[in-house]
């Protein structure tokens, strides 16, 4: 692991963040509609503000400036860590995200746990069994799980376990029990993805010559499967981890809505609805940051898992 390599990766990360911020800026500011007018409507009825009052508000938020001036000003502020304040609530964007983050992290963590444990177990089971029909069924499960819409799975789980059986709460309770269904909903498609990649890579590894050698030396089947083969097969699965994290963040939008949980997903839905541009941009930036950081960690972790992979300054 070399310093130039790290610097290069960090430089790329900055470019990705800048691009995410810029694209979101362009898209959001080119949207039809007027955030100030939306704010003035206040979700209510009755009297509306006069055009003069609206102009005054626009000036207060700098929305009367030419777009390019707004872009430069806001980019400079963002570079210094100032993401602005929410149009809708007047709260600082950073504190709004910081507030919404813990419940989402908690749920995403639980979802990832379900995904990793479930996905790995399924992949091992599918490659372990000798019965062709069972192997077929187990290998088909991930495709099925990936194709199920998240909101549908969530609603079905709530219907069954909350409304019919009454085992788990649907709204309200913020304890461990309330985390179970969202974690399963969130973990299902992600776990299926992990299972798919891992099963493929496992079955390939099991045919490799070092496995044959290990078997010839008299290593038991379980040790071959779990210690020798799984360790090597996990690398491709690790590669999709960045994608998995992105998936979990996107999934939180739906899962938080269905399960009535506060968090980043709900914040995003609410902000997009009222064109609260600073908050939406903050969320986009955060998602990009999470993506970049996870990918960097994964890349740096390769050589630790597989000494054959050497991280060099050469980027192909």
């Amino acid at each position, binding site marked *: 692991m070399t310093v130039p390599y790290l610097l290069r990766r960090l430089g790329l990360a900055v470019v990705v963040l800048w691009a995410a911020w810029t694209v*979101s800026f362009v*898209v*959001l500011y080119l949207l*039809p*509609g*007027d*955030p100030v*007018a*939306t*704010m*003035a*409507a*206040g*979700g*209510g*009825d*009755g*009297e*509306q*503000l*006069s*055009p003069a009052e609206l102009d005054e*508000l626009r000036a207060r938020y700098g929305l009367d400036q030419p777009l390019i001036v707004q872009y430069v000003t806001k980019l400079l502020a963002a570079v210094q860590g100032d993401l602005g304040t929410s149009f*809708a*609530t*007047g*709260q600082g964007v950073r504190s709004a995200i910081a*507030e919404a983050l813990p419940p989402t992290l908690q749920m995403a963590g639980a979802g990832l746990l379900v995904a990793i444990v479930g996905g790995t177990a399924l992949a091992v089971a599918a490659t372990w069994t000798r019965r062709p029909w069972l192997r077929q069924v187990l290998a088909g499960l991930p495709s099925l799980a990936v194709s199920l*819409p*998240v*909101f*549908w799975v969530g*609603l079905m789980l*709530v*219907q069954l376990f*909350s*409304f019919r059986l*009454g085992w788990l709460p*649907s*709204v*309200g309770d913020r304890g461990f029990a309330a985390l179970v269904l969202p974690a399963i909903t969130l973990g299902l498609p992600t776990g299926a993805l992990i299972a798919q990649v891992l099963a493929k890579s496992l079955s390939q590894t099991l045919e490799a010559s070092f496995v044959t050698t290990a078997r010839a030396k008299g290593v038991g089947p379980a040790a071959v499967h779990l210690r020798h083969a799984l360790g090597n097969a996990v690398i491709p699965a690790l590669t999709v981890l960045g994608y998995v994290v992105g*998936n979990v963040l*996107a999934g939180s*939008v*739906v899962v938080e*809505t*269905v399960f*009535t949980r*506060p968090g980043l997903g709900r914040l*995003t*839905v*609410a902000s*997009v*609805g*009222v*064109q609260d541009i600073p908050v*939406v941009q903050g*969320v*986009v930036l955060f*998602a990009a940051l999470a993506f970049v950081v996870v990918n960097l960690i994964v890349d740096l972790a390769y050589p630790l898992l597989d000494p054959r992979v050497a991280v060099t300054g050469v980027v192909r």
Partner: protein
Amino acid sequence: MSPARPAAAGASANRPSRLRRLLTGRPQLPGALRGLPAGRGAVLLAATALTLTACGSGPEAAGAAGEPQPGGTLVFAVSSDQGCADPQQVGSNDSIYSLRQVVDSLTDQDPETGEIVPWLATEWSSNDDATAWTFTLREGATFSDGTPVDAAAVKANFDRVPDIGARGTLPKGYLAGYAGTDVTSPTEFTVRFEQPNVQFLQGTSTHSLGLLSPASAAGTDEERCAGVIGSGPFTLESYVKDDITVLAKRTGYDWGSSLFTRPGEAYLDRAEFRVVPESGVRSGSLQSGEIDAIASVGQQDEAPLTAAGVELVARPNPGIPFGITFNHETPLGADPAVREAVSRGIDRDELVTTVYPSQTVKATSSLSSTTPGYADQSALVDYDPAAATAALDAAGWVPGPDGIRAKDGRPLTLPLTFAQNIATAKPSLELIQQQLRRIGIDLQLREVQISETPVVQQDGDFVALWGNLTRADPDILRSQYWTGGNNYYRFPPSPLDDALAGQAAATDEAQRAELAGTAQRLLAEGNHNVPVVELTTVLGVGPTAHDVAFDASSRIQLHDTWKSG
């Protein structure tokens, strides 16, 4: 209120399809999220004792539940949150339901008669031209921080209103032309206006002019949004944005509205308002008993809820019903024959039974039937396809080969702009489209985001606009249709202006009602506004919750609410 939903073939499909749309966008955060704001015009809800008995089809009718008993926690699910816990800064029903309980108002409004009755103020009067209103306060009321509810506190509240930011449009409208408050004694004060302001009196009965303690009122807009102190039957125990609002009973409360069924404290110990955005989860949790009452019941949820012993209560919202208003600066909007044909060509009965919850009624005037000053115009506002075609024939609009009428080679293609502020908007308009096609009008639907509608109105970038507004005072007509105001519909000056301006200055009840009636008749005669259906939102109340009372604005009052079992 949870608007901005995608197209749905019927109301029954709307929730899942919204989520589907959330999903089918790219799975990255922003794209996936065309969502549901806590919406403007997402005006929902409720029922008076009167309609309550009328629709008491639920298993537990009035007396069956036994005597009211104190104690318990009411759990109420709403669909959205406006992100602010200050009653003076919210306008969406979902936020008003909880925050209404935290503040008292100077007056209250009888939901059945529309009459303004005492609450904190025992009596009031205005000068002849309604530019000065003098109130006398009752004694002994205190805010929950211990400060007295006196004239100085009222002055502190009213003086602060003009400085509230963009979220304060409601109280600012009620205090339009505010010139100051003179405190003459701790219990007596006079509110002065620069011009006549008759609607102010009804404004004092709303949550928007509910009184905050002087310390609370002095806070910044943002500080107030985090939570306020009032004198109401409940205090705000905690508020978590987009999650939960918890209210606790105010012990020692003894200055309730004259409309409350008993003096003294509320029955309930606590009330929790949870934000549950998914309608299937709301109705499911109500059926399973996890929550006690829900707002925003859709047509698709009615049957399963009723089967589970849930009582569905409904009340048409006062104000301007859902309908079509024309831009009079466009050729089609200025054509009286086209306007008449649209009004006569809509079969409102078919629409109501097809699309809306079962307790919905069709509109019969430009004010809904629960608005004070409402005057029935059903002779002018009703389905009459013969009259519609006759009007078009007489004006020279003749049917073309494709059935669409044309005049001077120009087809009768009428663009209608709308925002999907409640789930029923699009299905209604699609049905209206079919109905108008039968008489040769080609109605083109143009959907805009809710956030765009103020801009569309300001710029006049529409021929016809679909919408509604909630307010329990006829002055709402003036705010929309008076050429001296914003005049978003570009009405030409007409005798309508005199009626609208006249009612705003008429201190005599009867005279005011007459002027409001004249305005409604003129609007109906000219078909300037085509009223279609009264917004009726339905509340689901579980078997253990009782006497959820509804105020004149079709929002709830929990002082008399109690729980059994």
